[in-house]
């Protein structure tokens, strides 16, 4: 009963945030079709970046874009400004100027700029950087932010249900919780217990489970046609890696710090050198490899899928439309199946390595 009600609430929330909109372009596009390698590269780069609205489909005959708009929240010289991103009319070249209480805002390459007082249009220098506008502080609910809020809500609903079931004293969960319980137990028995140790793993289960399901759900969302690329944003993965780093540094035992800073059992001359190596390893290299692995894997996955879809355009001249479309369909489908595997594997590996590092930090050594 509760679950049904909350799902309804979630649907209402999502619908309230995203009103379906269609934008008509003024300069009715002569030919909006993507056909040259440069355009394909630009399109892939555009997809990999965050954006201020959902773009699902463009009707090339009428030049109408279909998608959802999202709220824009920016901090300008003049204070806080909020409006829906539909005000930009799907423009990304800085031509549409949104005026809010004498503040002129434009969107250029997915970034929002504030025009100077007397400017009437966006001027660019040779390197395509705006000259008469400056960046605003952007708190917008962008596509990635929306994806993260959505994932958080899904997790809150699903695991809230599971937890309520246990609180009532039921040992066998009902409904969707029955799917989740084996996954939670998998994380506990295969990831946390062997790596952190029987005594101390309980304290870190919350973090490990959250990270595991957060990354997994976001990776899977990235495979839907909405084009989320949240775990492929380096800021997101960096943040997750920093969480892991703070946790293992804070919970490090006396033994861990002794072994890091003054390694027993090696010649005294080597100990300072080893301390530097170990410190750099724990503070810089381990978090860096964590964040880079997730970011690079997801970005590479999206890149490959997009490139294979683009095959139908690039090979059209030499193989004809039917063969090139068929080839790209088959290859993209194949890679998509691998990506489903990768989505799980990356969540697993991030959690696994996090618990491995935490395990190194909380380990208690016997006397040598």
């Amino acid at each position, binding site marked *: 009963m509760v679950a049904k009600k909350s799902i309804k609430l979630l649907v209402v929330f999502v619908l309230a945030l995203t009103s379906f909109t269609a934008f008509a372009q003024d300069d009715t596009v002569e030919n909006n079709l993507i056909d040259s390698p440069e355009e394909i590269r630009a399109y892939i780069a555009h997809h990999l970046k965050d954006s201020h609205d959902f773009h699902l489909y463009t009707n090339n005959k009428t030049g109408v874009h279909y998608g959802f708009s999202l709220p824009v929240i920016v901090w300008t010289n003049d204070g806080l400004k909020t409006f829906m991103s539909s005000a930009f009319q799907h423009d990304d070249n800085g031509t549409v100027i949104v005026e809010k209480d004498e503040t002129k805002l434009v969107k250029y390459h997915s970034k929002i700029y504030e025009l100077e007082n007397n400017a009437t249009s966006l001027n660019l220098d040779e390197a395509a950087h705006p000259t008469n506008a400056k960046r605003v502080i952007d708190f917008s609910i962008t596509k990635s932010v929306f994806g993260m809020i959505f994932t958080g809500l899904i997790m809150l609903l699903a695991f809230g249900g599971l937890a309520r079931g246990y609180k009532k004293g039921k040992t066998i969960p009902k409904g969707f919780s029955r799917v989740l319980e084996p996954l939670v137990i998998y994380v506990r028995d*295969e990831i946390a217990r*062997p790596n952190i140790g029987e005594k101390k793993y309980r304290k870190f289960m919350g973090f490990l489970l959250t990270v595991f399901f957060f990354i997994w759900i976001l990776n899977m969302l990235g495979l839907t046609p909405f084009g989320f690329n949240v775990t492929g944003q380096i800021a997101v993965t960096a943040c997750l890696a920093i969480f892991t780093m703070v946790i293992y540094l804070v919970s490090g035992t006396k033994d861990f710090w002794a072994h890091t800073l003054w390694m027993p059992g090696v010649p005294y001359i080597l100990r300072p050198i080893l301390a530097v190596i170990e410190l750099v390893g724990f503070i810089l290299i381990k978090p*860096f*490899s*964590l964040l*880079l*692995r997730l970011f*690079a*894997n997801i970005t*590479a996955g999206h890149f490959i899928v997009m490139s294979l879809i683009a095959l139908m355009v690039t090979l059209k001249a030499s193989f004809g439309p039917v063969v090139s479309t068929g080839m790209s369909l088959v290859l993209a489908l194949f890679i998509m199946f691998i990506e489903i595997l990768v989505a799980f*594997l990356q969540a*697993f*590996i991030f959690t*696994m*390595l996090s618990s*491995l590092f935490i395990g190194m930090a909380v380990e208690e050594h016997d006397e040598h």
Partner: protein
Amino acid sequence: MYNLIGAGMIVIGGGIGLGMIGSKAMESIARQPEAAGKIQTAMIIIGALLEGLAFGALILGK
């Protein structure tokens, strides 16, 4: 041009490494099928470390 050659070399190195990990893991699973789970986990961890190295080199070298 040179960074493309470098990227190719990184991929070759990573491929050789992954191949060695995979082949050794398969051999050990064939020798001791009851330890398959543990070997798989260890294999995935080493694979991930290698992959992190290769991706790091690719991104830094690009």
